[in-house]
Every structure is written in structure tokens, then in C-alpha cells.
């Protein structure tokens, strides 16, 4: 192995020098960022299947319930994950949810706008907020943690102050009557696949109300949005040029810039993405509840980041997956509802959330060391 192997042939040199091992299929799978979250989700399902299997948690109604909760979180978690892969944070997601809510409610209720126009208005404001976040981070070079922390306070404060100024209160009810016949609102407010549930009900396969209609009426809009977003973002990351730019921007900003990746534009678009996702979240919830609340979305940014981290995103950027964040959200949603079905006090949910995140970070850190330092 000594002098003889160091032949003139370059090829053999590298092979011998690097002592390359055959990489097994399993090992490749282990290197996928979403693996931890997938495993976690399976464990959570097994756990609650055993502990709460006979409580109705896994009835059609129960499943839709925890899927709805997971999906809502998932919508913002996916966007947060994309941004984190791009190397930045957005702490203003939660405040954006509250802000978007009143952007829909106040024009619709107090200014007499049609609901669809208010919804478009809210999304336009989201693009503006996202753009502002992005341009500030890119131009100043300040950490996005600080810039969006400032935006967290500014947006929440403005939401409260403006709502109180215009309406004299902090909640804006009365939206439910506007949803019917609106050309846009149905996208955020319609349960789908109702016929499936009606059929299942008629076959007596799922629980019915006393009037004979099924307890679970259809797939809530959040779940459809969640699935569609998860598919689109995963496709973007894996299959498009833009996806490669997101990884590059987060992995090494200068390096990416040097080879012609428009890092600034990529990051700004990702900030717009988180603000728009927050607005999708807000629209669904506002239309579902029929009212906007200025405090809606509080702390959601941290839950979204936690789900993204559990899903395999590194806090330093350049690594992670959208589908992983989706699994992360599924874990949190399932546990938060699952605790409700068991006898455990729901206060323990936050303890679980924190512990889960800690384990995920330690695991991710280990994976990154494996990936980068196995020279």
C-alpha cells in the first residue's frame, strides 16, 4: 500500500488516496434531510395508534381534525423551510398572519369592498411586506433574524393600532355571510370530496350526526393547499434551476454570486413566499372563523421554524427539504390533537414541541458533519 500504490496514474491515486467506500442505498437514504421527520411521523402515529386507538382520534372526523391542524401549520412551515434553505429566517410570519387577516376583514366589512377584492388586497400587501423584508436583508447585509424581528413588532403593532383606529375594537366579525357567491373565497373556504364522505356515511362506514349527515363533511381547504404546496415546492427544489439557486444561495452566498446565481433576487422571492404563505394561512382561517382577530398567528413563526428544523433544515442554510417540513408540521399537528384524545394535560404539548426540536437539531447537526467533513 505504500510506494507502489502512488503510481503515476492519477486515477488510481485518487481512489487509493481517498479510500472511497461503496455507498449503500440505505446510506443514501439516511443522508436525505427529511428522513428524521418521516421516521418521527411514523413513530408518532404508532404511539397514538396504541395509546389513543380507540378514542376516535383515527375516525374520519378525528383524522381530518389533526390533518387540518397540521396542514395549517404546514403551509407556513413549507415556506419557512424554503427560506431557511435559502439561508434566511422570517420571524414576521405570525404577525403577517394577523395583518393579512385584517387586510381582508376591514375592507370587506367597513369599506364595502367585495370579498375577492379584499383577498387580493391582502395578498398584494403580503408581496409588499415580503419584498420589503427581502430588500432590507439583501441591501443592508444585516441578519434576517434582526430585520424580521423588527418586522414582527411593526406588523403586529400596526395591525392592532389600525384595527382599533378604524373599528374601535380588536376583532372584526361578520365575514361569513360574504363567502357565499364570492368568485374567489371558495378557493380558501370549500370542503372538497364531499361526495366521498356522503357515500361513506350512507354506507354507515363513518360516524353520522343525528340528522343522518356525516360528521366529517369533506377535506378542509387547508389540507388541499398543504398538499399542493408541498408538491410544488418539492418539485421546485429538486427539479428546477430556481431550486438549485435556492440551495446555492443558502449554502454559500459569495460562491453562488461568483458563478452567476442572482442571490439577491432568490432571497427576496423567498421572503415574498413566506409572507404569501402567511396570507394563505390567514385567509383560510379568517373565512373559516368568519372573523379576523388582530392577535391571530401569534408565535406561529416559531412553530413554523420548529417544523422546518424537525423536517431537516439547517439553521445555517443550504440544506433541507420542503417535504421534510411538511412531515414536521404533521408531527406537531398530530401530537397537538393527539394529546387532546389521551388523558394527558394539553399543556404538555409545548414541552413535546421543544424536546422534538432539540432532538432534531442535534440529529441534523450530526448529519451535516457527516456530509461536510468526511474528507
Amino acid at each position: 500500500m505504500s510506494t507502489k500504490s502512488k503510481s503515476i496514474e492519477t486515477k488510481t491515486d485518487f481512489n487509493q488516496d481517498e479510500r472511497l467506500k461503496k455507498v449503500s442505498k440505505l446510506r443514501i437514504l439516511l443522508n436525505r434531510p427529511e428522513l428524521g421527520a418521516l421516521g418521527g411521523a411514523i413513530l408518532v402515529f404508532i404511539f397514538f395508534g396504541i395509546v389513543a386507538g380507540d378514542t376516535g382520534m383515527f375516525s374520519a372526523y378525528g383524522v381530518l381534525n389533526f390533518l387540518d391542524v397540521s396542514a395549517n401549520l404546514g403551509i407556513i412551515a413549507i415556506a419557512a423551510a424554503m427560506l431557511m434553505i435559502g439561508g434566511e429566517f422570517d420571524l414576521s410570519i405570525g404577525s403577517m398572519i394577523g395583518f393579512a387577516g385584517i387586510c381582508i376583514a376591514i375592507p370587506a366589512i367597513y369599506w364595502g369592498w367585495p370579498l375577492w377584492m379584499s383577498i387580493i388586497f391582502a395578498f398584494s400587501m403580503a408581496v409588499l411586506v415580503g419584498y420589503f423584508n427581502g430588500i432590507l436583508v439583501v441591501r443592508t447585509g444585516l441578519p434576517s433574524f434582526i430585520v424580521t424581528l423588527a418586522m414582527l413588532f411593526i406588523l403586529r403593532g400596526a395591525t392592532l393600532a389600525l384595527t382599533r383606529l378604524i373599528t374601535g375594537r380588536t376583532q372584526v366579525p361578520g365575514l361569513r355571510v360574504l363567502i357565499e357567491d364570492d368568485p374567489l373565497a371558495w378557493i380558501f373556504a370549500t370542503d372538497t370530496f364531499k361526495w366521498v364522505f356522503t357515500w361513506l356515511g350512507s354506507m354507515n362506514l363513518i360516524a353520522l350526526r343525528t340528522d343522518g349527515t356525516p360528521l366529517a363533511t369533506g377535506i378542509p381547504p387547508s389540507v388541499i393547499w398543504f398538499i399542493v404546496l408541498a408538491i410544488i415546492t418539492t418539485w421546485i427544489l429538486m427539479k428546477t434551476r430556481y431550486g438549485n439557486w435556492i440551495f446555492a444561495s443558502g449554502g454559500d452566498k459569495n460562491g453562488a454570486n461568483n458563478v452567476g446565481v442572482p442571490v439577491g433576487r432568490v432571497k427576496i422571492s423567498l421572503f415574498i413566499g413566506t409572507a404569501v404563505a402567511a396570507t394563505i394561512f390567514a385567509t383560510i382561517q379568517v373565512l373559516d372563523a368568519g372573523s379576523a382577530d388582530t392577535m391571530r398567528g401569534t408565535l406561529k413563526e416559531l412553530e413554523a421554524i420548529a417544523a422546518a428544523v424537525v423536517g431537516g433544515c439547517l439553521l445555517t442554510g443550504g440544506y433541507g427539504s420542503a417535504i421534510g417540513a411538511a412531515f414536521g408540521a404533521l408531527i406537531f399537528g398530530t401530537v397537538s390533537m393527539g394529546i387532546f384524545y389521551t388523558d394527558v394535560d394539553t399543556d404538555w404539548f409545548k414541552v413535546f414541541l421543544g424536546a422534538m426540536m432539540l432532538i432534531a437539531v442535534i440529529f441534523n447537526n450530526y448529519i451535516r458533519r457527516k456530509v461536510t467533513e468526511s474528507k
Partner: protein
Amino acid sequence: MSDYLVQFNNISKFFGKVIALKDVTMKLKKGEIMCLLGDNGAGKSTLIKTLAGVHRPDEGEIIVEGKKTIFDSPKDALDMGIATVYQDLALVSLMSVTRNFFMGREPMKGPPFFKTFDIEKANKIAAERMGQIGIDVRDPSQAVGTMSGGERQCLAISRAIYFGAKVLVLDEPTSALGVHQASVVLKYIVKAASQGLAVILITHNVHHAYPVGNSFTVLNRGKSLGTYEKKSISREKLLSMMAGGEELNKLEVELQEMNRKN
């Protein structure tokens, strides 16, 4: 038209009162390797950035393939075929070999508006190109972080060549490498030159430069001490011309005097 691929004539660069570069001239033909030698602070970094289009020279002219040009941006230089491989290599260690190879210049397929990153083609080209330099990338989707320093250096150079470099500017390609790895990289540089590229190899290591260089330009305190053909200068002479030489001689004399007094 001259037979030089690229000429940098009397390049000067000032930063306020500081003269970073003064009248530096370099000419390169196809297939030639010029080694730019200089100690720390000799002005190598400034010169590289001027070659790469990051800085605009305050005096002097740049002639590429007979045409006088001005680089307004690094992209300008790249478009003219002058590719700079910096010490940081512009590689993302968490990303795969393929994704790094095509970073910012991804091959696309599919109909308009639904174009996707043609990862199969990219994988194939990356593996093929790495194979040509003797690096057997069994799995082009493996992270660059798993490669050795020499392999990464070769990847960065190979990428620059694939994307149409005519002149390669290499910033200290061997400084972070062990002897064996450095020799592999140097071998690759010679091979690249033999295929018709002009290479500017920036280094402070004469032992790495001397075996591969055709000519040597020594930079000292922002000024060129001249360009020498390989046959007209010895390794020792080059070494002593770089800042160290004179000063080490002086130091020797001083030490001797100190000894005598004691």
C-alpha cells in the same frame, strides 16, 4: 494580430494614496502557463481581482485576442473567456457534485414555462468531466463536502473549462493542499494547458510553480520584477527574487555580525 491570447500591459491600480500595482505587464500565449510569484502583500490579490474584472485598472490596457477591452464586471471577464478560480473555489460543500458543477448555469429541458433542471444530463456531464481528470465520481449526487481538497480544486477548474474558459486564472490552487494532492492538481493544470488554455498560476510556492511554469513573473510590493522564461532563471534565483531572498540574505549578515559581537 499578435499571437498572444491575452495581454495585460502596464497595469496600475491605486487605492487612494496606496499604489497597489504599478506597471505590471503580462503576456500569455495559448498553452502557456505563467506563474505569478510574490510574497504576502506583493499585490497578488489586487492583480487577480483586476484580471477577473472586479477592479478596473487605473492605468494600462487589457488586450484579449488582439482586441483592447475593458472589464466592467466579473461577468465581462468571464464572457471574454477569462475565468478566475478563487481560493474559496465557489463550491457549496452541502450540495452535490452535479449541482455545484452547474451552479448558476443549469442545463434545462422541457417546454417553455415548464423547463426543468435536466439532472440526468447534468449528472452525466459532471461524471464524464470528472472522469477525464481521473476523479472517479461514482455518485455525482454525493456532496462536495465529501471530496478532498485536491478533488474540489480540480472540480472548480474543470467547471471553468467546461463553461468556455480560454484563460484560467488560478488563485493559490495548491496552498491548502498536501504534497501529493498538490501534485495531482498541478498535473491537471499542465494537462489543461496542453489542450490550448492559457493559465495564470498565482502562488507563493516556487516549488509548485517551477516544475509546471513556462514563464515566471515576480511581483514585489506592487511592482513586477520582470518576466523570465524558464530556461533563463533557476529555482534558487526565483526564490531569492521573491521578497524573502534579499531580506533573508540581510538577516544572515546581521545574524553573523551579532554572533561576532558576542
